[in-house]
């Protein structure tokens, strides 16, 4: 029995974390966040993502990738969430996954090395339909290729016309994409579409788990020191009990995201349930932990200058992506009640 990350997987995560802490900290995030009209796509971060293999993680080795699985990808996603990092990492990884799972040999050869090396930016959406408008594509304005629903399958959109859409979460950029011409992915059966959506859902859940853990850790650190009534506010049971409950919830969400990634990688029978559990638990944990981050910082937590709103806003955005907690619970009910 080994339900944990291996040393290699742990080190991969530590490297992402270390890079963000040293080279792209919350001040850098703030720069992107406040530059609302900018691309939201810092070059230095993208270069690191390419050089350190964050983009190549699930791309097969024959196409210049690392050939690793969703377990490793969720390690990266979790750290990017913890660092509230901006940039089109997830969309690029998922576009590559779509091509890997459903692309022709030519499409693989054309796209996978480019996506793995950061030479192309990818995006993935389940909303809208080709041809037509894809209403909310993350980094749709800068994506070289958008993977989107088309008929029963998926298409690669390479000449979409993007219109930026405002969002209060400054750690991403969202655009509506008018998809004109598109190229079908020949292997995109309903089963493959479901698999890709499951992979996307797990990566979003992992990002939320990272957001939740970091929000909780920062709140605990603050409440250890912040004094009111002559004592640290973290010594009050009203706060302790809330933070203890959050620790349980976040820990469970961590387990759930890890297991869901493994279940999808290994094609386990219970993988649909595992993915729904992960997204439901991670969404709730992140919403609760980031709301608590504001509350248990007191007034400072409600200011623009404090970082709490980066975490809160990112949680709000991702909690609904690829299904809200309620929607996943409905799925869980279908799977366990019938």
């Amino acid at each position, binding site marked *: *029995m*080994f*339900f*944990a990350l291996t040393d290699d997987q742990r080190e991969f995560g530590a490297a992402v974390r270390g890079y963000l802490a040293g080279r792209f900290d919350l001040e850098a995030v703030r720069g992107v966040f406040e530059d609302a009209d900018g691309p939201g796509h810092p070059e230095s971060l993208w270069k690191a993502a390419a050089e350190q293999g964050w983009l190549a993680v699930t791309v097969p080795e024959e196409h210049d990738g690392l050939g690793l699985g969703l*377990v490793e990808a969720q390690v990266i996603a979790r750290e990017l969430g913890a660092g509230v990092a901006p940039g089109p990492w997830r969309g690029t990884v998922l576009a590559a996954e779509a091509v890997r799972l459903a692309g022709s040999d030519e499409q693989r050869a054309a796209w996978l090395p480019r996506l793995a090396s950061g030479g192309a930016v990818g995006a993935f959406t389940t909303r809208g339909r080709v041809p037509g408008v894809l209403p909310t594509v993350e980094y749709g304005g800068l994506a070289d290729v958008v993977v989107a629903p088309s008929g029963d399958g998926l298409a690669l959109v390479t000449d979409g016309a993007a219109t930026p859409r405002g969002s209060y979460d400054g750690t991403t950029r969202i655009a509506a994409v008018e998809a004109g011409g598109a190229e079908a992915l020949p292997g995109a059966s309903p089963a493959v579409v479901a698999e890709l959506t499951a992979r996307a859902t797990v990566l979003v859940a992992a990002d939320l788990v990272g957001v939740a853990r970091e929000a909780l850790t920062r709140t*605990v650190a603050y*409440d*250890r020191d912040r004094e009111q009534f002559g*004592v*640290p506010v*973290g*010594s009050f*049971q009203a*706060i*302790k*009990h809330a*933070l*203890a*409950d959050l*620790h*349980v919830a976040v*820990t*469970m*969400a961590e*387990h*759930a995201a*890890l*297991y869901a990634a*493994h279940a999808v990688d*290994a094609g386990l029978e219970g993988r649909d*349930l*595992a993915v729904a*559990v992960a997204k*439901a*638990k991670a969404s709730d944990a992140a919403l609760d932990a980031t709301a608590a981050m504001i509350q248990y910082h007191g007034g400072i937590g409600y200011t623009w200058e404090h970082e709490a709103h980066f975490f809160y806003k990112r949680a709000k955005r991702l909690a609904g992506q690829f299904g809200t907690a*309620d929607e996943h*619970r*409905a799925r*869980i*009910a279908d799977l*366990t*009640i*019938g």
Partner: protein
Amino acid sequence: MDLSYTAAEEEFRSELRAWLQANIPDEWVRPGFWEALPDDESFQLRRDWERDKAMAGFAGIQWPTEFGGRGGTPGMKAIYDVEMVRARAPQTVNPLGLAFLAPTVMAIGTDAQRKEIIGPLLRNEVIWCQGFSEPGAGSDLAALATRGVRDGDDFVVNGQKVWTTNAMHGDKVFTMVRTEPDSARHRGISMLLIDMHQPGVEARPLKQMSGASEFGEVFFTDARVPATDVLGEIGDGWRTAMLLLSFERGASGMAQYTEFRRQYDEVVEVATRLGKDRDPVLRAKLARVLTDLECLRLHAWHVLTQVEQGSDLGFEASMTKLMWSETSQDLWEVYDELLGEDATLDRLRLDDLDLDLRPLHAQAMWSRSVTIWGGSSQVQRNVTAERVLGLPR
């Protein structure tokens, strides 16, 4: 990631499963069978069965062979716990002795204690009770007032213990006693191993809100215990107790998941028979519980992994207890809501449906206790906040 057990562990599972299949009569697994038996009869039946199981080699799974154990792996212990639940095997009659006392004796007992205590415990020749809680010392164990005064080679013990599992069946009780007069809090306490079959010890059943009597009270009136029958050092009982309670970390989340998942399916079955299984609000509530149950299963794997890797789980056990007890309670709250106006009735009668609800009610009632015993949820939150998160006391 490797969620499988070794070949040796799977072989152990097959052997155990075969033994359980051959040795649990069909009628024992019928709902309500055990509840219908008189308490003494039920206890004796279970006591004998458990002894036979030990003789067949299915006890002390992880204990070293020198103590009569099987010398098995943590994985085998997890498998054992799950298979027992799966087979609806009778519950152990010696839970405190097996889970807590035995490993403590192995760790710090004298050679004589190891010899005298462990073998008879494994064969159910001696039923052990735990004497910790008192009327004035529940969550605050260090407030205990039962006192022992040295008289020659003995301690003379006076006081009262409460919430004593198997009080009416116990042969001996490992008891936290204040053996230094005027000592305060954690100091001056000893863990005495007291014979319950003596005039100075009286056990009384404690009728719980469910009507059952799993617990009792034990009164000590000039009870005598040889001063050599102390576990650990005299006056160092707090340390002994902390070591003893640390073995709770071995408590198997996997078995709990198996049991709770079965309960979940029972509740779903009731909902279905009532025609409420399509109700979206109820479905959402059930799904919320199921989500936490699944997390409980994953957490059990996490704990087993840590044990196999030799990591110290430390105070994480508080989080585990908090999680499973609250989740169990959540499930039974959904059950109560689902029954609506009929929530308290013994039987549900609707058209062609006649369902005896009492076994389910008993489980629902029991769920009110699990967030109290073994450290209340409030205590577990304090421990998690202070010892895991590092918030100030």
